[in-house]
């Protein structure tokens, strides 16, 4: 069976909204999967792979729904594997390279501290499918939030070396957190109709979680400052293309492959 080598971005605002959330989950899930066979301990190996599995599972539900809403027969794999880089609209935070373990855990924490209240709020979405995906996702993300929080405490309040690494990760990753709250023009109507959640309404809770955990980890909470953006509009860092070299390799070498 042959398949399209390039799948176009959907036109429906709802499909695009679902796709952006799917892209966040897929790219972060893929990043975590890069730790497989590389994690510092066997327990952490399983934790990182489990979290990757949760996120990739969530992305599958969201991609399938985007295809259903768009109604042109696109399946989850078409969106996951066959789009151009510019048509992926994940936030830049999730495509950051894994770096060291402190960077991976801080990236996970920043994302989960947002995704947890986000999915909780999305359980009240007027869109029944998004509400159903939210009810599953919030339970899974709760583990990610707890797991990454506990690691931040251990790293920040651990040895001189682990503290230094986490402090460096904070300098590196903080400027990528602004995009968690980005709203695109085609999302405003979805927010007004109760399909989507206004991310700004989650800012207080996100900052509260981040402040609490950083302070317990003996690190100072950064404030404001200049923030990277562009991922939501499809303008990515140089790192995403390298990720695609792995993610898209098999489907592009053997179009329509199934296993």
């Amino acid at each position, binding site marked *: 069976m042959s398949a399209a080598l390039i799948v176009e971005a959907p036109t429906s605002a709802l499909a695009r909204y679902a796709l952006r959330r799917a892209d966040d989950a897929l790219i972060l899930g893929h990043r975590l999967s890069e730790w497989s066979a590389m994690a510092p301990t066997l*327990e*952490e190996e*399983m*934790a990182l*792979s*489990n*979290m*990757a*599995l*949760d*996120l*990739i*599972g*969530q992305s*599958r*539900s969201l991609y399938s729904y985007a295809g259903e809403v768009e109604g042109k027969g696109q399946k989850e794999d078409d969106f996951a594997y066959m789009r151009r880089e510019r048509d992926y609209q994940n936030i830049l935070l999730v495509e950051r390279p894994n770096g060291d373990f402190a960077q991976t855990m801080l990236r996970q924490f920043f994302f989960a501290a947002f995704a947890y209240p986000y999915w909780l709020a999305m359980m009240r979405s007027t869109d*029944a*499918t998004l*509400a*159903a*995906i939210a*009810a*599953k*996702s919030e*339970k*899974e993300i*709760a*583990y990610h*939030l*707890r*797991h990454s*929080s*506990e690691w931040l405490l251990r790293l920040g309040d651990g040895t001189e070396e682990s503290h230094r690494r986490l402090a460096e990760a904070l300098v590196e990753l903080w400027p990528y957190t602004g995009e968690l709250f980005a709203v695109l023009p085609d999302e405003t109507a979805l927010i007004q109709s109760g399909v989507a959640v206004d991310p700004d309404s989650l800012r207080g809770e996100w900052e509260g*979680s981040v402040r*609490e*955990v950083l302070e317990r980890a003996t690190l100072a909470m950064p404030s404001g400052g200049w923030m990277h953006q562009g991922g939501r509009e499809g303008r990515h860092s140089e790192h995403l293309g390298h990720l695609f070299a792995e993610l898209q390799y098999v489907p592009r070498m053997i179009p329509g492959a199934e296993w």
Partner: protein
Amino acid sequence: MVNADLRERAWAAAASVSDPEIPVLSIADLGVLRDVQMAGDVVEVTITPTYSGCPAMNMIQVDIETALAVAGFGLVQVKTVLSPAWTTDWMTQDGRDKLLEYGIAPPAGSAGRRALFGQDVVACPRCGSSNTSRIAEFGSTSCKALWRCEACREPFDYFKCH
């Protein structure tokens, strides 16, 4: 055969399918099997995933189709639903007993909101002691965590409250 009997037979066949990762539990014990209906000659089976990324779902679907074919049902449709979201509260008492006997601590209490740094109290499935500690929140499958008994020193799997 009247429709209600057929439906009952179809349910029994579907309910005989065991979880591929924890074979001591059936999908009915787990609460993954949600509904079985007859639509004319077609058996419509509704299942729900435990976790979004549960890799066992495809295999469970194939196993249901096989079990129903063996029971004489040729036309089967398996539908996956996400809502209401699966919870360990749906696990049957029979399922909990089977888990314990198998050496996996069943979910403790009912699924509720988790505090940021909260932790469950889990009894050792071997000696029953509550003097246990968590080794890792994630285990060999999405639904389990790895624990250790401080009394009998045995490590064990805990089926997480979810």
